[in-house]
Each structure stands twice: as structure tokens, then as C-alpha cells.
């Protein structure tokens, strides 16, 4: 059967239409193929150096190195005495400051075991910050045990709420890669960064504790809790690592709580017999000096703690705390 003239005209139109569609489709996939063409394939997982963050220095150059050592069994009065001795908290916290307090909330243990930052001490420091005019106080840590449990059982969470401070629990998205200038270990490694957004003052509050691997866990080792990822591999070279933590974090102040010292079974403790009343509270602008003094509460010296030597050599601070002419005060 021969197609009529009319139907062939329809066919021709349909053919053109189809041709146009096919042409567009071919042009489309060809362009897409060209745009996405990757002749070489993936390379070795690049060490992505983009997006590296660094903490700014929070230390106050104008205040100079300062240190106070208060003696007393009551943390609240000790900390007040210590602050008074170095010119009051106003010397460090100004009107409108946003303060971040890095606590040691590593373990889900009750406060009386002194494995974590004492909640009454924390509440008092927060109150002092607010009194000095701080617009907000943020409390954070990336604990070893489950964060919710740690902040609840250590009393830190309740303490923060009671004084109106903001508690920030770590989330995956809060970590950003950091690299320590002059370091060899902390390279492109996740750090708890998000809570530092908008913060201009940093205070570390840590208890004095025995620590089997590094000798002592005090102000400097407390920064371990800002590190994320599979951070336990740093235990292979703990002394250089703690030194690098000192390079990474330049705090406004550290508060080293030696009211009760965990003498044995650190850093978890777990029983009252691990503790000894040493009745000392240290406030210092120099984390190395604070820890060098803290070592004496553990019956150790700075020589027993290689990370202090290394930190001093790298200019993090001074082991010979007497050079800071610490003000010694005693509760009555």
C-alpha cells in the first residue's frame, strides 16, 4: 500500500519533530558527558588543607604573667581570694565579653570523686564573670564518657543552668580541622571549634589529678578535651602532644583546682581513698606555671613531667613559677 501524499506530509512533520527531539537529547547527553568527563580518575585521598581553623589567642598581653595561689578548704572562698589577689576578675573579664569555660567533664562520675571540674567552683567562676559584665558564659568539653551522662553526673550541667551559663555538648558538626603551627602531631585534626564562635575570653578550669601515661592531668592536659576524632592515638607520644595543646590554646586564664588532689588511680579515680585534701587554688595566666606548681601537690616536680619542659622550650610558659611572683593568700 502506498502512503498518500497527505499522510506523507504528516509523516514528514512527525519525522522532523522526532529528529529535533532526538537531536536535543543527543546534544544534551553529549554536553553532559563532556562536562563530567574525567579522564584521569580519582587521586590519592588528598590531604585537604582547605577549611583549616585556628583558635585565636585569648591571652591578655597587657595583664602580663600573673599568678595567685590561695590556700583553703572551701573552693568558693579560695577562688574569690585568688582573684582578689591578682587584681580582681575585672582585670580579665570586661563588660560585654563572651567567655568560654573549658571544664574537665571527662567522666560520668559524681563531683565528690573529683575526677571532673567541681560544679560549685564552676558556678562561682560563672557568677564572677557575669558580675564583671560578661554578656554570656559558655561551658563546653568533649568528654571521654557519654557527654550527656558526664555533664549530668558531674553536676556541671546543673551548675551551668543554675547560673545562666550556656552548656554546649559536642556534636559531630561542631568539629573543624585544625593544624598547630610548629607542631608535628596535630595536623588537619578535628577540634571542637563551633562553641568558640564569637567568644573573646577563654578560661580553663581543671582539677589536679594523677595520670598514668603523662604523669599528671592538670590545666594543659585539660585541652585534650577540645580534640575530636580518634584522639587516643596521641597517647603514643603524650608529652609532645600536650606541649602542642599548649601551642594550640592560649587561654585568658587557667584555674587549677588543688582543693582535693587525686593522688592515685588517675585520671578516673573512683574512690575517696584516691583523694587527698591539698587545699590549694591556683589562678594563673600562664598554664605552664600553674601546672608546674600543681605538680608539687602530687608530690612530683616539673622534671617528672616532660611535657612541661617541652612546653617551656616552645615558649608556652614558665616552669619556674616563682618568676611570676605568685601572690599567696590564705583563707582565715
Amino acid at each position, binding site marked *: 500500500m502506498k502512503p498518500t501524499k497527505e499522510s506523507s506530509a504528516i509523516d514528514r512533520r512527525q519525522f522532523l519533530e*522526532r529528529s529535533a527531539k532526538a537531536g536535543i537529547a543527543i546534544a544534551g547527553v553529549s554536553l553532559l558527558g563532556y562536562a563530567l568527563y574525567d579522564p584521569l580518575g580519582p587521586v590519592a*585521598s588528598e590531604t585537604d588543607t582547605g577549611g583549616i581553623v585556628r583558635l585565636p589567642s585569648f591571652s591578655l598581653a597587657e595583664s602580663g604573667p600573673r599568678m595567685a595561689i590561695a590556700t583553703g578548704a572551701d573552693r568558693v572562698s579560695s577562688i574569690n581570694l585568688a582573684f582578689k589577689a591578682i587584681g580582681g576578675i575585672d582585670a580579665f573579664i570586661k563588660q560585654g565579653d563572651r567567655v568560654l569555660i573549658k571544664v574537665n567533664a571527662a567522666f560520668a562520675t559524681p563531683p565528690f570523686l573529683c575526677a571532673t571540674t567541681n560544679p560549685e567552683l564552676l558556678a562561682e567562676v560563672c557568677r564572677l564573670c557575669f558580675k564583671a559584665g560578661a554578656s554570656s558564659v559558655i561551658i563546653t568539653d568533649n568528654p571521654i564518657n557519654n557527654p550527656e551522662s558526664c555533664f549530668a553526673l558531674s553536676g556541671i550541667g546543673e551548675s551551668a543552668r543554675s547560673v545562666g551559663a550556656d552548656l554546649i555538648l559536642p556534636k559531630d558538626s561542631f568539629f573543624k580541622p585544625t593544624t598547630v603551627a610548629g607542631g608535628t602531631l596535630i595536623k588537619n585534626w578535628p577540634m571542637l571549634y563551633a562553641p568558640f564562635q564569637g567568644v573573646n575570653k577563654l578560661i580553663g578550669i581543671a582539677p589536679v589529678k594523677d595520670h598514668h601515661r603523662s604523669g599528671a592531668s592538670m590545666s594543659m592536659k585539660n585541652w585534650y578535651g577540645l580534640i575530636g576524632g580518634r584522639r587516643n592515638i596521641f597517647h603514643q607520644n603524650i608529652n609532645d602532644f600536650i606541649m602542642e595543646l599548649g601551642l594550640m590554646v592560649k587561654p585568658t586564664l587557667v584555674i587549677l583546682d588543688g582543693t582535693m588532689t587525686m593522688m592515685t588511680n588517675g585520671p578516673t579515680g573512683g574512690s575517696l581513698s584516691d583523694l587527698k585534701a591539698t587545699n590549694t587554688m591556683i589562678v594563673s595566666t600562664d598554664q605552664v606555671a600553674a601546672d608546674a606548681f600543681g605538680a608539687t601537690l602530687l608530690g612530683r616536680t616539673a622534671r617528672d613531667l616532660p611535657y612541661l619542659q617541652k612546653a617551656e622550650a616552645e615558649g608556652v610558659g614558665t616552669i619556674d613559677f616563682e618568676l611570676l611572683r605568685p601572690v599567696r593568700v590564705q583563707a582565715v
Partner: protein
Amino acid sequence: MSIVTVRRVSQTFFLALFLWFCIVSSFGMEWRQLRGWPVNWFLELDPLVALGTVLTTGTLYAGLLWGLATIILTILLGRFFCGWVCPFGTLHHLIGFLGKRGRTASHKAALNHYHGRQSLKYYFLFFLLTAASGTLLADSTRIAFKNPVFFWLILAATMGATVLALVQSFSKPKRAASIGLALIAAWAVLGYFLGAGQMLGASLQTGLLDPLPLLYRSVNLVLLPLADADPQKLFSSQRYYEGAWVLGIIFLGALLLNLKRPRFYCRFLCPLGALFGLLGRYSLWKIGKTADHCRQCRLCEANCEGGCTPSAAIRSNECVLCMNCFHECKHDLIGFGTQRSATGEIVSPELSRREAMITLLSGVALVPMMNLNGNTARNYNPDVIRPPGALAEPEFLRRCLKCGQCMRICPTNIIQPAELQTGLEGIWTPILNFRVGTSGCQLNCVACSLLCPTAAIRPLSLDEKRGRDGFATAGPIRIGTAFVDFGRCLPWAMDKPCIVCQENCPVSPKAIFVREIFNTVRDGTLVVRKADALTVEFRDPVLFPDQMATGDFYLQQLNGPERERKLIVRNTAAQVMVRPDQPFQPPPEPGAVVAIQVRLQRPEVDVKRCIGCGICEHECPVSGRRAIRVTSENESRSKTHSLLL
């Protein structure tokens, strides 16, 4: 020569070429072993491979550009690939043909009549493609959200689409499809707000059903290993593949289904055929009737390979261009040309929108659910050793086709198809098993990385694998780390000298080193009856003759002035003779206590040097669960699995 003969020649040629490529994918010195043939060509021609990896990676890798040629030809011609090229299709064609022999023409026509469930393959295609597109969805929303203009545009479009879809779902239920699309968009947006971490994920699973990976896998892991047996060896030794029987059953099953219905796989299951069916929608040349009226003898359907009803309104998306109808029509009423069929044509598959939506959504939803296993996160399986050059696990799974090319080419047969070790999504992906093969991963071999068609195992140079020249700072590629099991190792646990692992460690300096120790053997502390400089006699005759003369045993006096160990060269039941040039000076006194000691070298692994090649594990004489075993810790491809600073 008729067009059907030309088609048969084409099919035979491509099937033979395919088999030839499989045969030459053998490692060895013979002329018929690997010599630079383009053995991946059929995978590269397969646009489903290209499309799947484009969705999961956003790139079109090297040879996969061939897929574009197939797509263009399909847009012009329709499913020519199925009827003329596809080697799997040819096998189905052949078996279907044999199965139909002797049947009457009307019986054959009934078998080849269109079946409503032929649309099943489209659902498979949709499912596999949406499963592959999660990351793309997440990324496109992320890009959009970086730019506020895009953000508002997308938000407006999504809201508009949702409202429109809702309105239409009342008036035109058939348009409910758009609801599904809106849901996907909403899912993507939600995924963005929830960090996109778990809500969206992509997984390349096309290789499960894609006929070319399936055929490569079946031939590589089942047929050729059977043919490798003596005396007609392709490989120099018998090849073994774990779970090959499952692959064999699937392959045989797919072939036997042709006896139920010719080209069963092509018509009902094949996602590639479905893709071609969609691409050929506007094809310029088509099969069709040139006249409306015919005698309805249906001879044209007796051998219709596509089941596309050429006698009536032809379903051109099912037509595989076998040309049998064209050839068989006694009245020349079927033509291949630019005209539409005189009895009409149906260009789109018969799909239920509801079912299509369910398929699309389940494809998007399944992958995030599989990811909840944590296989690519904290819950990674350390027994999964990937071949050297394998990308980090998530990227690897986005590219691996499960085609088995790496498993075929591996000279030592250690690359094996995974079962469920890497989760459901990792089924039949390559993992290393150092027991089943003939050695470990060879130090100077990069065959698998060069063969991988999608760069799931990226191409490595020997310099990069070995960490030489420009790669010296990065060091060699590590695929894992060997760990000594002190409870099973002969020198560690059983006082037996061994160190086969140390000797075979191919790294220089060796990653396995030994510490020497002298252990007093069981009941080996004895009291001297009498002795001279070279012979010591004990009070009790407790030894077997020459039991201690293997060169590994020493005698040491535990008291008295002479404490130096002397190598035992002979012994009787009560006497031990020591090396003549190592005499006792002075000889032990009667009553002195001596110990027979075995010299042991205990292996340890220097984790800095170990590359995880598994040769130690392969060679370990503890043949069941080896006393030194490789797990994936410290593999180069993952920073989170690193073991050292």
C-alpha cells in the same frame, strides 16, 4: 544476505569478542594471556555503568565515555544494543531459540506476546538509579543553599510543586506522581537541615542486575574457574572464589528462565534494557507495519525477541531490533524506517505511577537505612581488606560495579567477592583473603588497579604502590597491618622455631623482625652424672637419640663457673655432645644442674613498615586460623583507621 543473518553475525562476533576478552584476562606469559586487550570495553559501552557512576560521583571516568556512543546510537535507533551487541542478550536469544524449537508458530507467538509485567524492569531501573542518587540530591541542595538566590528559588519551586501536586492529586489522581517528586525534594531539603549526614546517601547497586557486570562476574568467577581445571589451563593454578555457587545459580537461573519465556531476563529484569527503552523513545528509525490491514497470521511474533507485538500497536520501547518480524512477514508489510507503524505504536512503558513512586522513594530511602549499620563509620569491619589503590570505603562503594575483573586478574587469586562482610551494599565487592589464594598481594603488581573499569580501585603506578621517587614522602600503599597472635604462633606459644613470616616479608627492611630468646625446654633441667669437655651425661636417661641435635638446642650450666651456652650436636638417651669448638672449660661437676634450651626467634611486626600485603599470613604454617593475620588497621585509604601518629 538477509538482515537477520547480519544480526546473527553481529551477535556472534560480539559474544566471541566478549568471551575472548574474558579469556585473555588471565595473568601469564602465554600469547593468549593479558596483552593489553581492551577487556573492559563491554562494561564501558554499557551506559548504565556510566549513568550509575555519574550519579554517585558526578564524574564520567575515562573509558566510560564509550557509553555516550551507545546512548547516541540508541537515541537514533532504539534498543539495537540488546538485539545486536549485548553478549548476555545473545545467550538468552540462543537458549530461547533452542527452547522454542519444534513448537508450533502459534505457540511461539503466544510465548512472545507482550506481557504486562515486562514493565518490571523499569521499576528495577528506577530503584537502582534513585539508590545511586542520594549524594547528588544532598550535594545539589547544599550548592543551592550556599547561594541565597538559589535558596529562595528552590524553596519557592518546592513549595509550588507541593501545592500543585496536592491540588492535582484531588482533581487528577494520575498526576499524583508529582507528589512523589515533591516528597523527594522535601526529603532532600529536610536532609539539608538535618545535616544530610544520615538522611541521604548513595549506593551504586546497578551492578547487581546490569547484564554486563553480571555476565562478567559470572564468567570470571564461575565459568572460567571451572575451565581453568586441568588440562586446559587458562591460569597456572586452580582459581577459587568464595560463594561462587550463588553466582552460578543466579547465572544458570537467568539462562534457564528462557525456557519459560524467551529472553526472560531481557524482557522482565534487565535495567539496562529499560534504560534503552526510555532512551529510544524518539528514535528516528523504527520497526512498524506499513499497512493497517494484514492477515493476522502472527508469524511476525513467532520469533519476536522483544515481545513487542509487531502485529498490532508495536511497543517500540520493548523492541530489540531483532528484525525477525521484518524477515518473517510473508507479505512484506513490516518495515524499518522513519514512518510510524500503520497500526500505531506505543513508545512509553506501561507504568503505574503509584508503583513507580514507591520504587523511587524506596530507592532513596533504602541507602540511608543501610548506612545505619555503620559499616563505613565506626563499625567498620577490620577483616575487610580492599585491594591496593581502593578508594576510601564510601567512595569505593560509589564506584564498584561488582564486575569481578579485579578478582579475575589477581595473579594470586586473593581478591574474592565479599558476601555480607561489608554489609548488604558491599555484596560481591572485592575483598582480600590470604588463605584461599596462592600467596599474598604481590609487591610489584598493580594489575587490579589498572583493570578496574570505574577507578573504584584507582590506577596505581608501581612507584606509587611502592612509595618510590615522587611518592617517597607518602610512602608505600598500605592495605592493612599484620598482627601476630601470640597464643598461636609456634615460637611464641609452643617453643618451636619457625619465622616463616619473617623470611617471607617482602618489604626492605623487613616489617617483621625477630627477638632471640633461649627457653629451657619442658623437663629440660637435668642433673649431671659425669661430664668431660664435650660430653655431658645425665643421671636419668630421658632423651630420645638425637632429639636435641637439630641445631636449635643448647646446653647451659645453671651453676658453676662456666655459664656459656653450648650448641648440642648429638645426643643419646642420657648423653649430650656439644660443638667441638665450644668445649666446657671446666666440664660440669657431677651433681651440677644443666638446662637444655631451645633457641627461638620470636616474630614481631614493625607497624611503620608493614604494608599489609598478607604474604606472612598466607605462608604461616598454622594453617587454620593463622598465627599472623592482616586486618585493615592503618590502611592508607582511611585516615580514621590509622594506627600511628
